[in-house]
């Protein structure tokens, strides 16, 4: 947990990474494809409200999937997988 919090705050520039859930936990809408474009919108300096509108995300259950996501797969990739 401490690791996650440290990671989140140390990470000033949000990097583009993966393993966002494929669908929204609550409503089942496909959201995985929207995560990368969402971050690109933010990097261009657009508001997240506009990004959501352009990407067709309306409900707040889907919005929290994207906004609350911390991506850790790059950290996991630094370690070899135990086979």
């Amino acid at each position, binding site marked *: 947990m401490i690791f996650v919090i440290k990671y989140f705050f140390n990470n000033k520039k949000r990097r583009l*990474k*993966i*393993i*966002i859930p*494929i*669908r929204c936990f609550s*409503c*089942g*809408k*496909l959201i*995985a*494809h929207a*995560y*990368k474009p969402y971050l690109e919108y933010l990097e261009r300096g657009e508001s997240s409200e506009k990004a959501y509108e352009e990407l*067709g995300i309306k*409900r707040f259950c889907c919005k929290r999937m994207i906004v609350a996501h911390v991506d850790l*797969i*790059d950290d*996991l*990739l630094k*370690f070899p*997988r135990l086979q």
Partner: protein
Amino acid sequence: MELEVIEKDKYNLNLIIRGISLEMINAIRRIILSWVPAMAIDEVIILKNDSPLYDEILAHRIGLIPLKTDLETYRLPADCECGGFGCPSCQVSLTCEVVNDSKNNLIIYSGDLKTNDPNIVPVNPNIPIVKIGSGSSLIFEAYATLGRSRTHIKWQPVSNIFFRYLPNITFESEKCNNCPDKCIVSRMCPEKLYDFSDEKIPILQKDYWKSCTLCNACEKNCPEKAIKVEGENDNYLFFIESDGVLPFNTILKKAFEIFYAIIDEFIEKLEQVEVKE
């Protein structure tokens, strides 16, 4: 019954339906939600997985990818001649073979899935499945079948479907002249349907019925009781939102087909039973 389309694009269909009973419209909604079949990956054979995710999680992610569906060619495995064992008329095979030769990490997208039927493809080629490191590989074979979302969410043809009463707001704006408050209602409405920019009398938007959620916040909080919010009986706004799995007319046609089939079966069974008079 009257039907009117108020918004239609690739992923959304909004209708006004007038003169239909609550039970009927809910039956249609629930049939679309849990009876209309859709295609999804049901079986994954993982041959090599060097990614940081476990095989089970990977299989789950692959299963959730929505696939474009063809209801003409394919049958539900339970209705198929093969008895659910798996044959070309109830199953599509998809394969993915990615070897990362580069120095960098590589993201595997749903576009990397190769299918043996060009009609059954992921709805979007940019859905990330997993990320693998340099020198790693991911090889799997997957089988998609038709299914119903009563069994699992992945077979749901729509991502959201709901209806609400057509809102009808009676707004007596003369009462606003004695209002002690600077229109608390315009600040309270979650959909911002009252325009109070002239600071005297709020104006209710003309097409409020499109977005009003019938939350009653305006009626409850207006100090002069100038507003009355009602839902019109038997008139509904019907919203369907899809991931692009099936076109809307197919979804609706199939829903009625299923509805008739259930009723027919019921009547047939009823005739077999002796009803004592």
